[in-house]
């Protein structure tokens, strides 16, 4: 469905050229849900904007939905849906149904077809009955489902979603995830989405591409990626360095550890399953007369995936690079 080779984009900024995307190769097969995961400024949105014909690549080529991105952008546009990052507050005077029909008509549907399509798409995204509602009056979750509906009005075979659930509450996120999954499962839509949430990529994607510094640094299934992540970290707070040293010995005997980091007052133990390891750890420490003042278990985060993959922490502008403006 997507085949990109050496796709690159650089922007001119006052500080000199910035390579937002550096010659990436990217393949998405029909029927796949692929997640593009990375921090802000990694080049996810730039990649998406190139693949959706909104931005001309400075180098490389891509076939999207069977057509060349640069040579036949209109053919590509006919076949793809694009849901941009959540935008600013909508204009007063715009209504859900009218906006959806307008979008469909720009996609080339006749007035009758557009209206008929509205009747199928709106209920599918739980927007049934809201057709006459002003966009300004929609909740965050409704607004996002409306955005997705806009991208679906012309029944595209390929859908691009840019940070679909950013800023939504957990319930609305789960709800939107269910909708996205059903698009693939019931309607056979191929989906490429960007996210900076590990749980989102994990919940939705068959395959995750990790992006950093304009490059794809990993391409694998969520399970395979998680397997290479350090595991859970159990942190035990103790009185002094002597206690920490004794505790380390006890812990190593009690459970299978991957890694141990000792400081003067705390012991950080990396294990496969934090929740399972805590009980035997505590029993061993208790038997040795050690009483940690606090225990915390932390699940791996995107930061940890990142650390493992790139050897550096996931922080915006970590290299002091300017984050390129999303030039439209």
């Amino acid at each position: 469905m997507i085949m990109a080779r050496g796709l690159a984009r650089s922007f001119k900024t006052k500080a000199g050229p910035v390579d937002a995307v550096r010659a990436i190769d990217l393949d998405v097969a029909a029927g796949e849900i692929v997640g593009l995961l990375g921090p802000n400024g990694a080049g996810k949105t730039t990649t998406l904007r190139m693949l959706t014909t909104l931005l001309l690549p400075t180098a490389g080529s891509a076939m999207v939905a069977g057509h060349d991105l640069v040579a036949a952008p209109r053919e590509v546009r006919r076949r793809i849906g694009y849901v941009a990052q959540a935008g600013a507050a909508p204009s007063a005077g715009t209504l859900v149904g009218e906006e959806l029909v307008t979008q469909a008509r720009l996609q080339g549907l006749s007035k009758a077809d557009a209206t008929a399509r509205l009747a199928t798409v709106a209920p599918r995204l739980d927007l049934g009955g809201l057709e006459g509602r002003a966009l300004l009056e929609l909740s965050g979750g409704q607004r996002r489902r409306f955005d997705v509906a806009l991208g679906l009005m012309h029944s595209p075979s390929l859908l691009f979603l840019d940070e679909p659930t950013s800023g939504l509450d957990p319930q609305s996120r789960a709800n939107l995830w269910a909708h996205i999954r059903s698009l693939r499962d019931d309607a056979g839509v191929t989906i490429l989405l960007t996210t900076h949430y590990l749980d989102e990529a994990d919940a939705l994607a068959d395959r995750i591409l990790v992006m950093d510094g304009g490059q794809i640094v990993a391409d694998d299934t969520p399970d395979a990626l998680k397997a290479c992540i350090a595991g859970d970290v159990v942190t035990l707070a103790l009185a002094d360095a002597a206690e920490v040293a004794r505790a380390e010995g006890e812990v190593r005997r009690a459970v299978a550890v991957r890694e141990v980091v000792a400081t003067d007052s705390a012991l950080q133990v990396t294990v496969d399953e934090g929740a399972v390891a805590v009980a035997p750890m505590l029993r061993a420490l208790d038997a040795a007369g050690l009483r940690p003042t606090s225990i915390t278990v932390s699940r791996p985060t995107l930061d940890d995936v990142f650390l493992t993959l790139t050897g550096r922490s996931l922080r915006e502008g970590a290299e002091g690079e300017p984050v390129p403006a999303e030039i439209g």
Partner: protein
Amino acid sequence: MLTETFVIFQRQMRILLRNPVWVFFGLTQPILYLVLFGPLLKSVTGGGLGGNDSWRIFVPGLLLQLALFGAGFAGFGIIQELREGVIDRQRVTPARRISLIFGRTLGTMVTIGVQGIVLVIVALPFGLHASWSGIVSSLVLICLLALGISAASYAMGLILKDEDSFAPFIQGVSLPLLLLSGVLLPMTLAPAWLRHISQANPLTHVVDATRALFRGDFGNHDVWIGALITLALGVLLAWWGSRTFARQSA
């Protein structure tokens, strides 16, 4: 392409007409000029002013001002649309880029046409006596100019992407053009140096043409020069505007 243009036009007009603040002020603003400034001109003499003839000088000037400011600031709307994601959402459709901008431009032009008609109708009871065919042809010229200016304004909005630079830019460009065109008072009252500068301003010729048309003086060479300049300016700005829009859309 026509359908796409119409779909965009329809959307623009829907949003506009649902805004009661706009409907009220958009239509009453031209009237304010007539009521609060027009009477002053009746007692000015010279340059064709004085008495009820003043309205034939003043109303064409107001029409030009309407086109310049009304269409000049049209680009404000596109900056909001850019933020909202409407522009991107329309760019990913196969709709032709030219339809996307001309649908909007057409909306602005129709708006200005309607405001112009209101202005002329309200001016009648104040004492405007003018050639009807002259009024109609003036409105056509003004609409053509508005078409070009608004296309350029939309393009500038996309280039600047920010109201804080867009507003001073438009103000900075349109104010000298307006003052130099003799919109408020005819340039025949100006000292020689100012008159010479104003001759270089294309809008001077537009307003001269509409003043001659209001007098019903169709044979006047001001009419032909002004009409040609309006046509050239409108087409040039519209061409530049749509080309920039297409380029910004990749």
